């Protein structure tokens, strides 16, 4: 009895010591990896900009070194736009966010108060250094003869798009399709069209890149509703096994950029981060933007590359949907139109 009593006390002591070690060691490990944050930026971005920002970051680092002699590092994080916004809200230390649509940055402003509500008016052109649009990517030779929006709802056509709940590109694609429906006969016709369209969608990935991989690598579906830049990139990466089809009309996609004020003040990176966002509007960055098949916003660059981009009628979120706040609430919020029309089969 006595012995077991003694060992029990020893045991409790040993257990407590181990527990304490277990609790503190990860914290110490975290501390040991702290570094000089003032020369490091984190750009939290959406899916199809991986290659774009790789090149822009290198160009900006070279520019900054030439200007100040300082060596900087820019870290990248990519994923579905909505998911990335959620991570920033949960504490991912983004100095700048470059997301697919304004509504996601609005969320960061509203929920985490990391930047002011008027963030979009702080940079030129609604804080969008480039625009893009939604096009169709089909398999070589266009076996289903897909030319325009009505062809997507034909029975048997497999349409690939990502989940509008998590992907910014998919929200633009949804609105582009809806705006076509509106033109054919108002909200009722639009709802009918979009319902039929999503009946032809066999799988919803969380991000635009995921749905591109589904279509191009895994060869599922007959047409991909794609970012224009992502469609060109797919041809660059996978060879000429695809054709890009421009529909009769689409949407002007404006992926905005913003400084995350609370985070840059904490990291003391405001100058570096502001410089980075302004750099996106510079001729050098606009050239890189055009090279990656995004539509440059700067008038000179836009004129220079106008031949690279097919001009088709583009509706805007502001004119057709009353702005992103309204579009988000009507179509993509819980219980919104998308929830009503999409039933996974």
């Amino acid at each position, binding site marked *: 009895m006595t*012995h*077991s009593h*003694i*060992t*029990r006390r*020893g*045991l409790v002591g*040993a*257990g407590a010591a*181990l*527990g304490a*070690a*277990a609790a503190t*060691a*990860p*914290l110490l*490990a*975290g501390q040991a*990896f702290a570094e000089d944050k003032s020369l490091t930026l*984190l750009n*939290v971005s959406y*899916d199809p900009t*991986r*290659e774009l920002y790789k090149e822009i970051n290198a160009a900006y680092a070279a520019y900054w070194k030439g200007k100040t002699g300082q060596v900087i590092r820019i*870290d*990248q*994080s*990519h*994923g579905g736009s909505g998911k990335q916004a959620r*991570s920033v*809200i*949960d*504490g*991912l*230390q983004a100095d700048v966010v470059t997301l697919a649509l304004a509504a996601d940055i609005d969320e960061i402003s509203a*929920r*985490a108060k990391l930047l002011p509500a008027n963030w979009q008016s702080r940079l030129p052109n609604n804080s969008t250094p480039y625009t893009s649009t939604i096009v169709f990517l089909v398999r070589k030779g266009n076996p289903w003869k897909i030319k325009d929006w009505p062809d997507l709802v034909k029975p048997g056509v497999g349409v690939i798009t990502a989940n509008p709940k998590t992907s910014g590109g998919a929200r633009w694609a949804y609105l582009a399709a809806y705006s076509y429906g509106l033109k054919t006969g108002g909200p009722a016709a639009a709802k009918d069209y979009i319902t039929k369209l999503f009946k032809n969608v066999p799988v919803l990935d969380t*991000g635009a*890149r*995921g749905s591109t*991989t589904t279509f191009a*690598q895994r060869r599922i579906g007959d047409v991909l509703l794609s970012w224009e830049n992502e469609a060109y990139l797919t041809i660059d*990466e*996978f060879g000429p096994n695809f054709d890009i089809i421009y529909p009769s009309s689409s949407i002007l996609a404006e992926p905005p950029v913003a400084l995350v004020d609370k985070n840059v003040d*904490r990291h003391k990176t405001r100058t570096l981060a502001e410089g980075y966002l302004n750099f996106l509007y510079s001729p050098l960055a606009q050239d890189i933007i055009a090279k990656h098949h995004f539509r440059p916003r700067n008038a000179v660059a836009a004129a220079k590359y106008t031949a690279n981009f097919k001009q088709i009628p583009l509706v805007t979120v502001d004119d057709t949907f009353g702005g992103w706040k309204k579009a988000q609430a009507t179509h993509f919020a819980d219980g919104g139109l998308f929830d009503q029309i999409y039933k996974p089969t």
Partner: protein
Amino acid sequence: MSGQRTSSIRLPGLSILLVLASALVMGMLVLLPLFEVFRGAFEKGIGPYLAAVREPDALSAIRLTLLVAAIAVPLNAAFGVAAAWCIAKFEFRGKSALLTMIDLPFSMSPVVSGLVWVLLFGAQGWFGTWLIDHDVKIIFATTGLVLATILVTFPFVARELIPLMQDQGADEESAALTLGASGFTTFFRITLPNIRWALLYGVLLCNARAMGEFGAVSVVSGHIRGLTTTLPLHVEVLYNDYDFVGAFATASLLASLGLITLVLKTGLEWRHAGELSANRRH
């Protein structure tokens, strides 16, 4: 021990069919995908393979994975020994509750194991404001990856040791104590040598899972390339970058880790069967 092996029931005819069927299923489900990983990795030859695994982001993913495992596995080994010792050698109230708690990570989705840390330490979580004010980064940093990995892997060592230590009983320890040995002497001279092979076995499984975990670390990583992407996350990043050779090359490192673990595990079962816990002996 050898007597048990010959006592299996013989099923003439049917047994051959069953063996063939299971070999076919194993081939389809395990060997074929494994082969695909290595085929994809070496699709463009050895040069691109080496380039992919030597690329800075890949090296930092390897370093991060090793670091996370180097912290999580020893902690879980220590915790596992302590917990198994408690449970196997003593009777106390709440013992079955403790056992259930240890098993919890096995029965819940790894995504939950990651999400709990976001709910606790995320900016909108319980301690979020305090952590931000004191500039302590847990989520979307190495610490969060370590915490998520610890939670997912903590049953491995304890689960391996508990049946063995229950089997062994407390007689030897009691004898040592009667002869005047202190608690720590008893632990290091009697208990530890008795369980060393089972402990190694548990550590091996714990390590394999720690390095291969995807779901839990994906939630707390933030996916900052070269900074918070472990090897499994790096595979996903490369795959989404259309860098299929890089993705498969990195995946082949993880697959190799799995194969090495398998060899060591089999070796342990072969040579030290008697010293592993009862459910591993055959």
